[in-house]
């Protein structure tokens, strides 16, 4: 099989997918990042190489997510792109004509508005993480229910309870108060879903023109309670695509396909990187009072990248070494 790899290194999960030449997803691997992006990328690639039939050829690889630069250096990426562009590219391919993308991940949430296949507007949560996957995770743990049952239970609600949605702290104390008053669990969970949707639409979705088709993706789209709350609030059907939780990675693979088609060859270093020794370290530069935290990555003892310096003194040094 011939195709492209897409890697999305997010705060909570690291997703690796493989698409064939036609752009169809054949394999998807979903791992928890657990604060070790490099180890997870290595582990994921190893797993993928085991799944692919013998003689498969990797034509290119793309990375996205907050760890995209790090992952890009490790694997030798052909495309390193931000999450917004990656999500938009993937969704346009899977749901042609999509006009609104609602995306809620572990630590961030975003809205992307497309018209005629082109992104015309977007927003990301700025100062607040209320209503993202991490908060739902935490509440599920507090109520002692598995996160994958959350939505099913919420759907059983007959009259939802009103929960404050503006701030995760307010939401939590409101939930506890209602719970102590004797409200039922399904009603509380349904109320929480509605609160999160309200907060999302007022905060991230503020001033945006939400038109159908609406696609909901990201890890939180697994929650059927959230899907229903969105449909109620918007008065529009909300679609959840297959592979909704790895759409960023799909987009990265599609972007890699585009980049390789333009360039003619790939930078991919091969599956051998799963066995290489990577070390990251950081030091504080004392060149000026900015005291930049410089991060450096070594591959089997050789420095392959540095970043974090504002003046470019350290990152440029690596680049120049490589050119000469």
């Amino acid at each position: 099989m011939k195709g492209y790899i897409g890697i999305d290194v997010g705060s909570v999960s690291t997703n690796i997918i493989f698409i064939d030449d036609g752009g169809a997803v054949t394999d998807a691997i979903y791992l928890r990042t657990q604060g070790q992006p490099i180890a997870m990328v290595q582990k994921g690639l190893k797993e993928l190489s085991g799944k692919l039939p013998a003689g498969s050829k990797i034509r290119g690889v793309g990375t996205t997510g907050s760890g995209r630069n790090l992952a890009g250096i490790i694997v030798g990426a052909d495309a390193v792109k931000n999450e917004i562009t990656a999500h938009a590219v993937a969704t346009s391919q899977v749901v042609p004509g999509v006009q609104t993308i609602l995306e809620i991940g572990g630590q961030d949430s975003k809205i992307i508005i497309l018209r005629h296949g082109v992104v015309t507007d977007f927003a990301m949560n700025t100062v607040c993480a209320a209503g993202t996957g991490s908060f739902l995770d935490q509440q599920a743990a507090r109520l002692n229910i598995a996160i994958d049952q959350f939505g099913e239970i919420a759907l059983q609600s007959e009259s939802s309870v009103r929960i404050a949605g503006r701030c995760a702290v307010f939401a939590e104390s409101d939930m506890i108060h209602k719970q102590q008053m004797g409200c039922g669990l399904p009603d509380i969970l349904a109320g929480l879903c509605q609160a999160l949707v309200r907060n999302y639409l007022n905060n991230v979705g503020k001033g945006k023109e939400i038109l159908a088709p609406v696609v909901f993706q990201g890890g939180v789209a697994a929650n059927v309670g959230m899907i229903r709350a969105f449909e109620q609030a918007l008065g529009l059907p909300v679609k959840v695509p297959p592979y909704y939780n790895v759409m960023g990675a799909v987009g990265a693979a599609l972007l890699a396909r585009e980049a390789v088609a333009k360039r003619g060859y790939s930078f991919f270093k091969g599956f051998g990187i799963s066995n290489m020794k990577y070390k990251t370290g950081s030091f504080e530069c004392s060149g000026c009072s900015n005291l930049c935290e410089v991060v450096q990555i070594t591959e089997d003892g050789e420095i392959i990248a540095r970043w974090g310096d504002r003046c470019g003194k350290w990152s440029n040094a690596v680049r120049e070494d490589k050119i000469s």
Partner: protein
Amino acid sequence: MRVTFPHMGNLFIPVKAMLQYLGVDVVVPPPSSKRTLTIGAKYGPEFACLPLKLNLGNFIEASEKGADTIIMAGGCGPCRFGYYAQIEHAILKELGYDMKLIGLEPPQKHLTELLAKIKALSGTSSWWHIFQAIRFGYRKAKAVDEVEMAAFRSRPRELTPGSTEKAYAKSLEMLDRADSEIALAEAKRNADELMSAVAVDSKKAVVKVGLIGEIYTLLDPFSNQYLERTLGRLGTEVDRSIYLSEWVNDHIFMGLVKGLRSRKKACEAARPYLRHFVGGHGQESVGNAVNFARAGYDGIIQVFPFTCMPEIVAESILPEMRSDYGTPVMTMIMDEHTGEAGTLTRLEAFVDLLARKKEVKEVSCK
């Protein structure tokens, strides 16, 4: 008396020039850095905006270098900046820094008071000498602005990454060192030469972004996470709604120098959306967004410190302007965060959006 003042981008170059022309002993605070921010955030009120914290850090770091007098602008209007000079002075006093405050109220309302304060600072200087000093400061501001604009043009087109940055830093240094009108003219010639020597790909297609917003975060690269530099690196040519010399012309010379963009024009452009003063530069932000959209800019970025009231008013009006002109607008809010990944993600996505939109437009035109 050793005089200091807060940083705001390149402001220190003309202000230092003017004060030294008058024979004032000047202590320029060290460039704003993480240390400045840490000091400011430690002693400033938590709910104050980023400029107050950086001002405070600048004053404390300048005092470590021997400054004993602060010059700080004031204001009167809905923006709380108007009382920052007094608040900062009170905080410093409480911390045991014995510094004298010279508060400069906005010259539109208190021109004679401003001139009297400058005269007092300069000791025995004649009015003619003071006029010359202000003119020298203004000319420096103008030279700095022109070098900056040259950097805006060459950054997205440079052939060697970082070459614009090097030439720009060197040019500013030369302008800063010039201590007379003659030396300044010479330095300006050399700086122009240096900036035009940066090798560029003049045919490269770049997207154009207009920057609007609150003056401090707009003019100060440390506070806006080097927005202009990052955008340049992403292949974007930027222009700003406010330049130092324009501000001086509007607010100190009362618009006497003709041919520059003015506050009045921005407010006229804002008229269909916002007809009155809302504090700070809120009204100008709306007007300048309209002007950038009319001038065919691909996109507009608004920048302001977290909790900035005048700009929040402007932000809520911008979507209407946007639906009239179709120019995408993105808002960036600055605060204490120094992690640049989030900023970079948003800028990258915004530039992608603009480039793609432009591509589609050009294809459909053909």
